[in-house]
């Protein structure tokens, strides 16, 4: 390892523009939220920040959101623990395939899934009918009334468990197996070894993943919106957008959300410093993965099958809905048709929204690629004071929920050149780009750290300038990582919900997610049209994710952690 280069003029220019970019599009909107929440008129006051909590509806929303996030995170953890354990520690046929499939739900947009879920859970929907046919219940259950909370939990668990899974697998494979053998050797049974050594060792990774899941579940807007579950923070913030000019309550709520997520993020990063468990493993036994026994195999396959089935079920319902002609009082539709695809494409919202999304996502990806590669290069190769700060700042967007960002943008940039009320395209690109920048940086950084600096030095030694070296040696070697990061950034930009719902206010600027949401509200065939559009989006995203997984492989887990 060389000592890294001294920062040159290019580095300072890059850092300068980053500072400007982040101040303008990250700190300024946040600052604006603070200002409007704490200095609504001319003087500082905590009245709104505290009074908003005295509103019983808001208090209920607060409690519900926290409970939702906590239950979702816990459930995802419990669900993933056995899956991740066998994937990390046991050898069985089809392991890689199953590991890849496990990631699929991540890109099945949960708010589209929610439409399908509603279909399954409605009064005479498939679930009630199945249960009644089986004689388990005699009256249809009211899943969507009192049970909305659990409906949202189930959808979010099924959507977010891959993040937990990736982190758990990475954490479990990272535990030096001789540490476990040492515990066994000292008299601890396999189960005690797991709880006394394996799990504590994996804790930082688990917590890092858990925080992302928690923040995500806490601030998700799409799913509760589709379920019409209004008693959560995200929806309550969404509802306050209309009168945000006059009423500081919305800002106060956003401030609370921000506090919660920052707390989680900071805990993950500093309480569980990542280096603590990095011990030299020189001479450690690279564990041979034991083969599963016959019963272990049966259990593993069934577990994966059940989880995968459950997680695609809502989306299966979306597909069925998109094809249905009649679906009443039966478990699956009686008659299928392609007419909704035709109608969806004929609808004036559809074509423009697809076009908008492609333009927005491409632009955001380009911006991310430019910024991300430059930042990653500086972090990996240049030694300067403030590298740690740069790293932290680039990762901050992970802690920033879409609703907070969109709310800040809408407020801060009203009445400017880029007022989203007039034309939101610029801000949408920036919002998408900022929120996914961490994935791009992580991905590119992973690439750069794997390229031995000697390879670059050799090129320079043979007469290549820094730029030529970058172009002929470094970039070709890290291209895969950059492409994979780009694919993820693009896919997530296409499916971004909260920014899109909040910032796009005119029909001609709707991205695809907002179009789906608006179609849903249409009478008669709204769900069918929304689903038809959703199926298209799902197919697209699944392809993108599988591609990224192929390119990144195991390192994929690195991208989803605090």
């Amino acid at each position, binding site marked *: 390892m060389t000592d890294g280069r001294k920062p040159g003029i290019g580095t300072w220019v890059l850092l300068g523009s980053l500072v400007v970019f982040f101040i303008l599009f990250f700190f300024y909107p946040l600052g604006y939220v603070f200002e409007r929440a704490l200095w609504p008129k001319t003087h500082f006051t905590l009245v709104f920040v505290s009074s908003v909590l005295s509103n019983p509806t808001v208090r209920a929303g607060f409690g519900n959101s926290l409970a939702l996030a906590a239950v979702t995170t816990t459930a995802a953890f419990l669900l993933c623990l056995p899956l991740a354990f066998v994937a990390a520690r046991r050898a069985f046929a089809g392991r890689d395939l199953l590991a890849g499939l496990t990631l699929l739900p991540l890109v099945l947009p949960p708010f589209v899934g929610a439409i399908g879920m509603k279909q399954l859970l409605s009064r005479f929907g498939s679930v009630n009918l199945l249960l009644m046919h089986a004689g388990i219940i005699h009256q249809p259950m009211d899943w969507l009334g009192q049970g909305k909370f659990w409906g949202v939990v189930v959808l979010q668990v099924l959507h977010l468990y891959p993040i937990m899974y990736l982190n758990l697998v990475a954490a479990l494979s990272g535990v030096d197996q001789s540490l476990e053998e040492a515990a066994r050797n000292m008299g601890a049974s396999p189960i005690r070894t797991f709880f006394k050594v394996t799990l*504590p060792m994996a804790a930082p990774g688990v917590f890092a993943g858990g925080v992302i899941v928690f923040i995500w579940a806490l601030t998700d807007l799409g799913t509760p919106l589709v379920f019409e579950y209004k008693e959560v923070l995200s929806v309550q913030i969404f509802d306050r957008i209309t009168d945000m000019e006059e009423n500081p309550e919305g800002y106060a709520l956003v401030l609370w959300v921000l506090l919660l997520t920052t707390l989680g993020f900071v805990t993950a990063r500093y309480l569980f410093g990542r280096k603590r468990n990095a011990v030299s493993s020189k001479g450690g036994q690279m564990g041979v993965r034991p083969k599963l026994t016959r019963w272990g195999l049966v259990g593993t396959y069934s577990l994966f099958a059940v989880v995968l089935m459950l997680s695609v079920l809502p989306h299966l319902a979306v597909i069925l809905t998109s094809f249905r002609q009649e679906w009443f009082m039966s478990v699956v539709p009686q008659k299928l048709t392609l007419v909704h695809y035709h109608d969806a494409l004929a609808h004036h919202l559809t074509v423009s929204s697809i076009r908008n999304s492609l333009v927005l996502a491409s632009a955001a990806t380009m911006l991310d690629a430019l910024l991300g590669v430059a930042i990653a290069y500086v972090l990996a190769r240049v030694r300067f004071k403030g590298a740690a700060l740069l790293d932290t700042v680039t990762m901050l967007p992970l802690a920033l929920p879409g609703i907070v960002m969109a709310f800040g943008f809408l407020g801060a940039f009203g009445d400017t050149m880029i007022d989203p009320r007039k034309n939101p395209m610029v801000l949408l690109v920036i919002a998408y780009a900022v929120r996914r920048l961490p994935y791009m940086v992580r991905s590119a950084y992973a690439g750069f750290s794997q390229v031995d600096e000697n390879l670059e030095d050799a090129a320079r030694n043979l007469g290549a300038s820094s730029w030529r070296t970058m172009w002929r040696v470094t970039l070709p070697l890290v291209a895969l990582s950059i492409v994979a990061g780009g694919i993820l950034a693009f896919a997530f930009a296409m499916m971004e919900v909260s920014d899109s719902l909040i910032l796009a206010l005119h029909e001609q600027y709707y991205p695809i997610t907002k179009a789906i949401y608006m179609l849903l509200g249409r009478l008669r065939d709204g769900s069918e049209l929304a689903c038809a559009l959703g199926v298209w989006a799902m197919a697209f995203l699944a392809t993108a994710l599988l591609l990224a997984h192929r390119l990144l492989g195991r390192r994929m887990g690195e991208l989803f952690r605090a």
Partner: protein
Amino acid sequence: MVAVRVEQATKRFDQVLALDGVTVDMESSQFFFLLGPSGCGKTTLLRSIAGLVPLDGGRILFDDRLMNDVPAHRRNAALVFQNYALWPHMSVFDNVAFGLVERKVPKAERSHRVARALSLVHLAEAADRRPTELSGGQQQRVALARSLVVRPDLILLDEPLSNLDANLRHEMRYELKRIQEETGITMIYVTHDQKEALSMAHRIAVMKSGHVLQVGEPEELYRSPRSVFVARFVGRTNLVAGRVRDKRDGFVQVETDVGLLWGRSTDGADAPGAAVVCSVRPEHLQWNHERRIKPGPDAESSQAAAPGSPPPWSSITARLATRLFMGEVEERCYLAGDRELVAIDLASGPSAHQGDEADLVIRARDVVVLQPEEEQAS
């Protein structure tokens, strides 16, 4: 303390046969070494004794107890890992106390015993620190303390000194030997470093490709290797190929490139005309300076005195090619014809000059005549 008996142990990892019918006895309260190059199966054997690697076939006995089906955590055979395997999320104290907690030792006794184990390895003051804050040598001693504190039936050590620098390694040899003698615990030690094995072991098993080639005390292995592999792996040696010409009283005369050599015969390497290899340790190759050594009858060697017995000395003419002064000794490389022979002499001996012609003499009992390697392998 237990004695360990391994019978016909076999273990296969995918393509590799790591243990191929290994049988070996390790006596109670001894310091026993498994010595061999990497990939010889020594670590696999150690780990199967610890219960971390299940055998495909064969038996492992502690005294008379069959251990094959006893899980790792019930064997009471403490393992010191090559990378120490200290738990980074626990303090040094908790690391050492771990086994006592698992054995449900009461709290008061626990801290007493941990303190004693730590002071035995001279680390009493480090109890509250994290393993990551310790140096390699200190971590190594914590790992040792962790094993000692549970009063195991035996201690297994997997190349415990290989991650230490040379000085520390030397110091720890004394330390380990002292602790083994003080505690009287049976210890089984895996290493590829023959000096470690020779200097510390009561007995050594030399392993190669999943087989045990020879078991014996250090001196026995050094003086009487039964194969070229053992001769070469344990200590340094000069190997000279040749053919058997004559055979008398357990000695054979071998015709080699460097001249006629008399040496001790071993099984399968004494038939006249047979291709053999002579092993001569560097310190046994002596420069007969001014012919002070008379290659006549030798008072030390009784067989040689009898009439008709083989001559006690062989003699070779060579030229001194290179000298390496190494402090207490001097290493000399002679050329006999075009064969290099390495000798070690006391540096205080008669001085020599590069290019000198020299008579080299070797006592017959210092030459071991062995079967060539390929034939032994079959």
